[in-house]
């Protein structure tokens, strides 16, 4: 009889149940096979998206099936790609050789901390690749095998890679603690690129990539759809503030191009943050434009391959050029900023046709963006606040007792710690920090980054979100915190779920949603509703 799959009842063998021995598997990690239980993996990429993007081996396949329908020469493909990547990138070669297995990173990954699976220790996650590198490419490894932590590439290794490289959110918390600066996230990216050559990826990543390649955004929103969406938002804003806003779209010659993740157009509570941007820009009288082509700040190409990331990113500069803007402003997002801040300039720059960003309101020149020409919205807004250009009534947020989650990429990727905090403190009266070892560069991931934020792997995400949820629960118990603010579109979607499980009662908000609620606008009516259409005061 075939071995039952985890979604069949026979999977829970009765004999096993009687013999629950309370002990972990006694095999070493190399011999312990992957356990694909539902809730612990993401569904495979659909062939139509792979075809559209020109990715090899598009096919229907199932993670729990024995046969993953790989091409006959799969070993050759993987080893060739691995060799090529090592030659191309000196960093990867160094990461392969230099780890001394000191273990400093071992207990820093949220997936290990929450779930307890040793293969989620960053050092072991990297070892999944390194062992094959040793076994296939080094003499010692070829001769001594297991003794020197080397092994051959087998189908089981491929399955293990799929499991664990899609259980890493590329958050880089581990790298903060590594004395050699080894970045496990980069190794995860490498691992995913190797799998992609065999047509192995997850649909939650590859569908948005394919959408984005076709329509300019992950969700596949068409130009008129985006226009409708922004107009809906404007209607809500008018109802709340009495102020009519006309969102400028594809406006040639505007001073600033504004780009934000498309999740803000469709998913609550990101939608409220999006309304927040619109209100702020209106109040400032900013000469800006939305683009229906550069309608996505996020870039799931980052979770696919370097090549794909570059392809998707190219539209931002292209659109800035077409519209003839001076510089680019970007919305609240996480991984979007990793791409913009660290890769865009070298991938698709230099953007010589743009000017060094200068705030038209305060005159501040954003020297930090001298080369990319793209400024983070919280940098822009914090500067306005510092110059006293905005008027707030923080008491409108008095129902909120707020803490702030540093999103991994803006925090560790670009050192954005103070700006969001400064805004939050200006627009509300009750702010409380989570414990020190869970914020700023030590922040814990939401568990859903790097393309893991879908729902079929919910258990996995809740494991990964445990350390963050635990810290939120702590401030909830201690300070009655009921609001978790963040500057990331993925967080806005995934952290609400993390809170619903680990700290029920806490709601997630974007920073510019809070700001817009407190913003005193010229000519506004007395505000009785917040952007969620909930009453502001006690008169419910």
């Amino acid at each position: 009889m075939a071995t039952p799959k985890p979604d069949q009842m026979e999977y829970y063998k009765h004999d096993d149940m009687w013999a629950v021995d309370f002990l972990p598997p006694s095999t070493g990690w190399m011999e312990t096979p992957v356990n694909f239980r539902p809730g612990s993996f993401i569904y495979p990429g659909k062939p139509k998206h792979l075809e559209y993007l020109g990715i090899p081996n598009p096919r229907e396949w199932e993670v729990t099936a024995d046969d993953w329908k790989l091409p006959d020469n799969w070993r050759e493909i993987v080893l060739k790609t691995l060799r090529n990547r090592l030659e191309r990138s000196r960093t990867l070669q160094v990461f392969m050789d230099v780890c001394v297995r000191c273990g400093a990173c071992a207990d820093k990954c949220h997936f290990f901390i929450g779930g307890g699976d040793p293969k989620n220790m960053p050092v072991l996650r990297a070892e999944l690749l390194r062992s094959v590198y040793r076994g296939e490419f080094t003499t010692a490894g070829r001769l001594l095998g297991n003794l020197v932590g080397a092994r051959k590439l087998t189908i089981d290794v491929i399955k293990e890679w799929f499991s664990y490289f899609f259980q890493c959110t590329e958050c880089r918390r581990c790298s903060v603690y590594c004395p050699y600066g080894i970045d496990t996230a980069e190794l995860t990216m490498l691992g995913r690129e190797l799998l992609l050559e065999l047509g192995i990826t997850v649909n939650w990543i590859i569908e948005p990539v394919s959408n984005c390649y076709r329509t300019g955004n992950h969700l596949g929103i068409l130009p008129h759809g985006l226009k409708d969406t922004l107009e809906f938002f404007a209607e809500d804003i008018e109802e709340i503030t009495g102020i009519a806003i006309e969102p400028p779209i594809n406006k040639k010659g505007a001073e600033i191009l504004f780009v934000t993740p498309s999740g803000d157009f469709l998913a609550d509570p990101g939608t409220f943050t999006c309304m927040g941007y619109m209100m702020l820009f209106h109040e400032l009288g900013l000469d800006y434009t939305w683009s229906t082509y550069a309608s996505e700040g996020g870039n799931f190409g980052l979770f696919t391959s370097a090549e794909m990331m570059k392809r998707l990113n190219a539209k931002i500069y292209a659109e800035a050029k077409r519209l003839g803007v001076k510089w680019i402003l970007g919305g609240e997002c996480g991984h979007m900023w990793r791409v913009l801040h660290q890769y865009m300039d070298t991938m698709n720059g230099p953007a010589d046709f743009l000017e060094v960003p200068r705030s038209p309101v305060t005159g501040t020149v954003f020297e930090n963006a001298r080369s990319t020409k793209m400024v983070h919205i919280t940098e822009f807004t914090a500067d306005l606040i510092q110059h006293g250009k905005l008027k707030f009534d923080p008491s409108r947020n008095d129902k909120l007792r707020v803490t702030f989650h540093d999103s991994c990429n803006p925090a560790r990727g670009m050192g954005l710690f103070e700006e969001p905090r400064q805004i939050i403190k200006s627009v509300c009266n009750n702010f409380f920090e989570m414990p020190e070892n869970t914020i700023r560069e030590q922040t814990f991931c939401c568990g859903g980054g790097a393309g893991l934020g879908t729902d079929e792997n919910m258990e996995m995400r809740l494991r990964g979100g445990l350390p963050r949820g635990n810290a939120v629960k702590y401030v909830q118990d201690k300070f009655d915190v009921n609001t978790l603010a963040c500057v990331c579109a993925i967080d806005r979607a995934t952290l609400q779920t993390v809170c619903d499980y680990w700290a029920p009662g806490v709601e997630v908000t974007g920073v510019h949603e809070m700001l817009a609620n407190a913003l005193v606008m010229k000519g506004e009516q007395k505000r009785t509703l917040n952007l969620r259409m909930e009453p502001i005061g006690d008169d419910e």
Partner: protein
Amino acid sequence: MKDLLLARQKQISKRWLDKIFESYPSDTSRFLSRESNPFANPVGRTFEQETSELCRLVLEGPDPEQLVPHLERIIKIRAIQNLSPSKAVSFVYLLKAAIREELGDCLVDSARHHGLEAIDRHIDQLALLSFDVYVKSREKIYEIRIAEIKRNVSRLLSGSGIFEPSEPDDSPHQCSSRGSGR
């Protein structure tokens, strides 16, 4: 018997905790027991706190209402750790072994053995309760999963033309697609 158990309560709950930690792979078990910061090691420290409370309650003669919140804090974690249902609640039975190990020689006395039966019944009760709690945690997971999907398409107005029209989808369930949140 009760007095004896209460006197050894600390040692018993320590043994119980160690056994729970040992049921994890060795690297994990070392981490869970050693790291003392509750934010760096939320699982280990939660288990420590809650098993000690549960142990006290069981030895004192348990009241289900008091047991549940402590059980919940442990099982909520076990429910998402990729464990089979039986394994997820199995930690309760380790308390029996912990008590027997701690009492050791004292158990030769048959009167005392009799006293132990009462405690065993309490532990069995705890195990039954833990199954309820486990199922509740799992139901919560499904509930929040659905809530998230709904939030992610909150602005999706059917027929609004926001999206490209898509062809009907007949791929197998592992290839299903859905809304947004990205």
